[in-house]
């Protein structure tokens, strides 16, 4: 549904606004690489604009920081209504390596709603183009959650009366005492 909506609303050209809320400028350089003739993004209609009031898409880089949270929120609210937010890089997706420090509040989705995630530290310019293609519905996302079980066994063999819950959420109540 989101895909169809995106194709309908953003069928023509996307104007992007580039917001860095305290990253290390690695992702900025990759985003600027996308706009160079090598990865000519303007053939897809992507154009970098200077004001959030002209933009359809916000490219967020850097974690949500204590000092820039309000400014990021105001920039998001200044964008006109059908808007997309891309979190580019590990900092914007999950808070970065310094996710638990004083100045870092966490990922940008704590401040503004994020629609698409492009992980990487920094992501390659091709990864950013791929993320835009996913957003426009040109390709399907490739990744999916993986779950592997080494062995199915009737666990635990010793104290089955101490089990709580069922299936993958099963908890062994006396795990502290083992």
């Amino acid at each position: 549904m989101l895909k169809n909506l995106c194709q309908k609303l953003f069928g023509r050209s996307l104007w992007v606004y580039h917001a860095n809320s305290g990253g290390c400028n690695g992702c900025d350089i990759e985003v600027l690489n996308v706009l160079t003739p090598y990865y000519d993004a303007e053939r897809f209609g992507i154009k970098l604009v200077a004001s959030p009031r002209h933009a359809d898409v916000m490219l967020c880089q850097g974690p949500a920081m204590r000092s820039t949270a309000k400014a990021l929120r105001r920039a998001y609210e200044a964008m006109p209504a059908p808007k997309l937010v891309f979190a580019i890089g590990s900092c914007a997706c999950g808070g970065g390596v310094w996710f638990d420090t004083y100045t870092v509040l966490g990922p940008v989705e704590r401040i503004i709603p994020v629609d698409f995630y492009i992980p990487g530290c920094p992501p390659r310019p091709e990864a950013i183009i791929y993320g835009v293609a996913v957003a426009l519905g040109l390709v399907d996302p490739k990744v999916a959650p993986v779950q592997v079980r080494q062995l199915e066994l009737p666990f635990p063999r010793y104290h089955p009366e101490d089990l709580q819950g069922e299936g993958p959420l099963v908890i062994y109540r006396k795990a502290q005492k083992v």
Partner: protein
Amino acid sequence: MSLRSKLQEAWICLTAGRVTLPYPAEPRPTPETFRGRPIFDGNKCIGCGGCANNCPAREILLLDVCQEIRVLQYLGRRCTYCGRCAEVCPEQAITLSRDFETATPRIGDLRQRIELFMGSCQRCGRCFPEPTPLDRLKLKGYRFDDIEHEHWVFRSETYLPGAPVADDIAIELD
């Protein structure tokens, strides 16, 4: 002057050739040394927890569900692809693939979860705990993370269940 310079410019533009890469139409190979998304091989993993202890972004969580089952969960949100987990893995169960096309609308798509079967003593059926809590803390892989809330905690005597250990700070906006 103007006509000549225009012609010169047109000549330069015509002879410059094309540099734009046809990326979305054709796949673009990455260099050999590129580190992309880590792939966890559930059949090779022995559950030592070295990757969880060495991850700088604390993205790998461990939880001992019971005596035999240890859950290892990789979240992949803030992974910086540094490759330290692959470097410390004694069984080469973690390989950094060259896959970079990981953009997704759901951040949970990057998660990888392995439920490991841990061997125990054939006679008593238990593993071998260290004698003192200090020794237990020094033991590699002695973690007891809160997978449900995605907290990473080292299991020690000071940890109280229910108390947030590495919780994010609640933010206030006006």
